């Protein structure tokens, strides 16, 4: 089982990238599980059409522990197992602690044993802002961390922060840094800037996604690009990125 936690600056396109990677991996016949670790709870929306999914923390909120694994997940495109951690009441509680509680609950209910995924993708909110958001990179969860970034300065800054955090946790047996996915925003010298980042953190670019209107078009259809436009060159880029990740297997 390959378990990857995907981080990156807020709004950089993590959920879209992760969902397309998940779809590409599923097309290859892999059993994929995607877990959204964000109170917005929209990580898997492109994978499950209009199928409603109650977040794990909403289940905890309303039913304490009296709910089943089946209530926590939905099977989406090509049987991708979709789950959303959810979050506390907006403005209250602790989102980071919520991620811990949700992932613990998912494990307690036997999600990994039942679905036996080949690949688990944790789509994590933004930066590693507190202890809760390191949960997906702790032992027992992700083996590798991938960061999605563009060539924008703030995105590169966030990616560098995340890489530093991963490095700091090496003596705790946390996940290893696997590389960067360049999600292009067409800024000047974008490839060079991200390659410089990769060099600085002694890592590499493991995937590159062009900026394209197809992403928006697919979202309007409620689908990933991989599902909506399987023959598009952009789909091939997602497939290549997914394959680069799977090379860790």
């Amino acid at each position, binding site marked *: 089982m390959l378990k990857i936690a995907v981080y990156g600056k807020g709004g950089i396109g993590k959920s879209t990238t992760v969902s397309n990677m998940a779809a590409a991996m599923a097309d290859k016949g892999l059993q994929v599980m995607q877990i959204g670790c964000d109170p917005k709870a929209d990580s898997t929306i492109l994978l499950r059409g209009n199928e409603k999914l109650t977040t794990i923390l909403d289940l905890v909120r309303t039913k304490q522990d009296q709910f089943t694994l089946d209530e926590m997940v939905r099977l989406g495109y090509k049987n991708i197992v979709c789950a959303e951690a959810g979050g506390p009441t907006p403005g209250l509680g602790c989102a980071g602690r919520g991620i811990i509680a949700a992932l613990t609950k998912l494990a307690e209910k036997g999600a990994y044993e039942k679905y036996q995924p080949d690949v688990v993708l944790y789509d994590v909110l933004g930066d590693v802002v507190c202890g809760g958001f390191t949960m997906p990179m702790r032992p027992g969860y992700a083996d590798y961390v991938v960061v999605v970034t563009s060539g924008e300065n703030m995105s590169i800054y966030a990616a560098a922060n995340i890489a530093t955090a991963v490095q700091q*946790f090496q003596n705790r047996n946390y996940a290893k840094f696997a590389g960067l996915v360049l999600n292009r925003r067409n800024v000047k010298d974008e490839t060079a800037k991200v390659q410089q980042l990769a060099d600085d953190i002694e890592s590499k670019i493991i995937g590159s996604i062009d900026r394209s209107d197809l992403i928006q078009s697919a979202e309007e259809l409620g689908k990933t690009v991989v599902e909506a436009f399987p023959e598009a060159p952009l789909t091939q880029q997602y497939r290549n990125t997914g394959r680069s990740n799977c090379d860790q297997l």
Partner: protein
Amino acid sequence: MKHTASIISRYTADISGVCSALYELGGMTVMHDAGGYGSLYATHDEPRWYDQDSLIFVSGLTETQAILGDDQKFLEDTIQAAQRLKPRFIALTGSPIPMVIGTDFPALALEVAQATDIPTFGFNTDGMHPYTTGIDQALTAIATRFCTEALPKTPNLTVNLLGVTPLDFSVNGTVSALTESLAAHGITVHSNWAMYNDLDALKKASQAHVNLVVTTGGLGVAKLLQQRFKMPYVVGMPYGPALMAQAVTAIQTADQTGVNQSILNCTKGADTYFIGETVTTMSLATAYQQATGQGSRVICPVDAQSGLLTENELTAHDEDDIRDCLKTATTIVADPLYQPICPASARFVPLPHEAFSGRIYHDTMPNLVTDFAPFLQSLV
């Protein structure tokens, strides 16, 4: 109201369970907390505190450290103390604040172990689970780390007592009396998890023939030792001569067949209620039934899915639920701090329990191994 106790006490928490279980084993236990829990443990939960030394510390977690997620001081203090005191092992325990900020105790334990070369355990205790889960975590960790070798069996029939702490048995002679009583029936206690024994005794647990699980805190170890060494276990605390005789037979049967046994066999009765820890209280109800022929109801407020309960036992955790359960009771056997929520019409038989009322009734806690007959007399 759910999860609220406005009248009665609450059972002590998992942190005390860990500390209590490890108290006599020569390790060093550090509670990561601002300080309040250390006082609670020392004052209320640990009757050995003033009479027996143990390396128990509180980290003195500050608000700033919590907000900044600064683990460094905790790590440095722990490492420094361990290097000076050289404990056999180190245990790091959490409390509510580290739980809320997501402190990763197994990861911190790894760092401490790397720095000190001393086996270190990190327990994700949070003060929100009952003491029984702490005992279970602590003893299971000890067995996992130190009981790795299948040693030759003792020539005579021996047992390990599993789940023994003052939180359930106080320090009033109950455990010694149990050991003597078993010896009188030809069964030697090989190791005691974990009172009156050190770590070396526990390391040799695989030499014993059978494990005797006397509280749910010992169930995890029993399952682990069975998995590793095919050691069968018997569940029950033998109160009274009849249940002791049954326990002896069960231990012999387990030894001969390798099949786990239970001496818990209390059937449902309408009027008499026992409240307390699952194994000890079900044992008491069983002994009561053997002596009187009467069934009873058992309420197990701290049962953490032990798998031991039948449809006859109730798992009410909250004050209101327990009060509802007791509405029709005519006799109630429980810690005295339960009495205010018991119906006035019911006869109340006090049975102080250290894990519930701390030191308040410490001096009157009965030794039910030696004094079962007078206790029974007070009951009937």
